[in-house]
């Protein structure tokens, strides 16, 4: 959902930029500067195309960012050599635009390679002070997207929940499974794991888009939550594979849970994909089995093969 909203806002912004370009061309016409009309007038359809492309597939969306970037570059490049005293002011625009539109790595590379070009274009104003100021802007502004990447990586390393659904991440799942194995051994309890595979998941994204994909995931997580106890743990082992860890549960208990869950899942009918299909199988911790070998056994046992 967030992605499509972003795409729309970006497209709207690009469209507004096209309007601005048209306005600029009109202004030059009114002011009688006929030689300066051509560039904004020519760039208007380019930016409009970018606005439309932003709404398309991810590849075309990425291309649209480059179109807007080139437009911005050309406009600033026309402005810089002029007699106006605003040249140093416009010099700050291209590096910021690059950082906003491109991912950090390519943006920094582009900014640093283009530095001499921008500075030469503004050579009427070139002083060591301006060079330093420009470099400071490039380096300091690059810290902002970096901080975002840092925060996101940190969240990924510390948040136990999956980004897409209400299940644990793989690393957290393995961690909790291991601790539950230890607890079961200490208390002399049984432990069972229900392996769940969603065969429709990949197809749902390809055919119906990310909305159907998310609906399928949340239907599974909701149903599992309503069919399991408070301390049962649902984790996402692979893209379409989930493990439901059932502490203090014998094999017959786990089979009962499986039956109940199968029934509940069959009753879920989704808008795009229809009846929810799931393949379930049960695997139990053997007495005195090492957690690592139990995990290996679980991984070897893909539910669709069972």
């Amino acid at each position, binding site marked *: 959902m*967030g992605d499509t909203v*972003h795409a729309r*806002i*970006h497209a709207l*912004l690009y469209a*507004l*930029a096209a309007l*601005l370009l048209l306005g*600029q061309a009109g*202004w030059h016409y009114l002011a009688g500067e006929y030689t300066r009309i051509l560039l904004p007038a020519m760039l208007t359809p380019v930016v409009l195309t970018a606005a439309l492309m932003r709404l398309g597939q991810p590849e075309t969306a990425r291309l649209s960012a480059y179109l807007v970037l080139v437009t911005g570059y050309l406009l600033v490049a026309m402005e810089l050599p002029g007699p*106006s*005293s*605003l040249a*140093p*002011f*416009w010099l*700050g*625009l291209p*590096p*910021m*635009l690059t*950082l*906003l539109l491109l991912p950090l790595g390519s943006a920094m590379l582009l900014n640093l390679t283009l530095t001499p070009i921008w500075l030469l274009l503004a050579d009427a104003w070139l002083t060591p*002070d301006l060079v*330093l*100021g*420009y*470099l*400071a*802007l490039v*380096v*300091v*502004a*690059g*810290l*902002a*997207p*970096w*901080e*975002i*990447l*840092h*925060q*996101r*990586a*940190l*969240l990924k*390393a*510390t*948040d*136990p*929940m999956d980004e897409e659904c209400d299940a644990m991440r793989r690393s957290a799942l393995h961690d909790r499974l*291991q*601790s539950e194995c*230890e*607890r079961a051994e200490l*208390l002399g309890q049984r432990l069972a794991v229900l392996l769940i595979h969603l065969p429709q998941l990949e197809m749902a994204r390809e055919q119906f888009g990310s909305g159907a994909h998310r609906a399928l995931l949340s239907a599974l997580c909701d149903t599992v939550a309503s069919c399991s106890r*408070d*301390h049962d743990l649902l984790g996402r082992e692979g893209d379409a594979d989930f493990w439901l860890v059932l502490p*203090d549960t014998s094999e017959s208990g786990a089979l009962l849970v499986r039956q109940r869950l199968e029934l509940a899942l069959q009753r879920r009918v989704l808008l795009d994909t229809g009846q929810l299909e799931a393949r379930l199988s049960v695997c139990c911790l053997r007495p005195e089995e090492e957690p690592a070998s139990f995990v290996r056994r679980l991984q070897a046992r893909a539910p669709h093969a069972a």
Partner: protein
Amino acid sequence: MQSKYKVGLLRLNLLLAALQPALLAPASASLTEALLLWLAAGWLAVSALLVEFSHRRPALVPWQLLPSLLLTALLLTAPERFPLWLWAWAGLVMLPQPAWMSALNLLLAGLGWGWLARGMAPEQTLLSGALLAGLLLLGLLRSRDLAPLRGAARRRVHLVPGMRLWPRAQLARDLARERARSQRDGVHGELVLLRTGRRRFWPQAQRLCELTRRFEHCYRLDGRTLAALLLSRDAEQAARRRADLLGRLGPVQRLRATPLAQVVSVSDECRALEQQPGSTRFPKEGGHG
């Protein structure tokens, strides 16, 4: 490993960034300008020292606010020297920040633009204003990207990657579940609160995580209070484990252990820890109450 590497690079970049205003400072026209540039360099250098890959020290609001104020002050005192820095506002709104701070940043960006626009022709004023607004909006979108994730996730994340230490909000949720579970399993569960010094907090937190079993969770309640949910076969074993834990953990200022069945709420327990007469209080000695 990979993340540590990235933090090292980020630190290097912060130090590089700190170098720039420091180089610019000597050529300043006025003392205020030089002072502001040195402050900016200082902020970046200290940030470089503080940056790390954990939630141990979340950025404080005044600290986050400082660059915005510095940029405003620089644009106001030396508009002819750093006009290109006006565009840096798009970077500042991009940072993850609370909504009111985004609003304040937008306001300050508008102020900076108004100040610079005094010397511009009207059409340039309009054009630059529209472009700045567009860039600010793009920056805001980038920061909002992370916001929904942060809000819900902050209450459930581990505080340090790889360490079993959880935030206080998580304890309230785990408490009810662990109470029901230990009752059903017939094991003796207890909530142990530990008060340590601020300096010793992180080493002792690390030690506590190492000394407890993998399925016993540890929590950070505030800057100097740790909590752990300990599970033992019976009260006797629990007392032995507690003594063992205390012996290996090193000195703590206060300690309180309460069986899970008697815990009403986390805040009640914290208050009781604050008010208890002795430095340690175990369930058997004082009884309940």
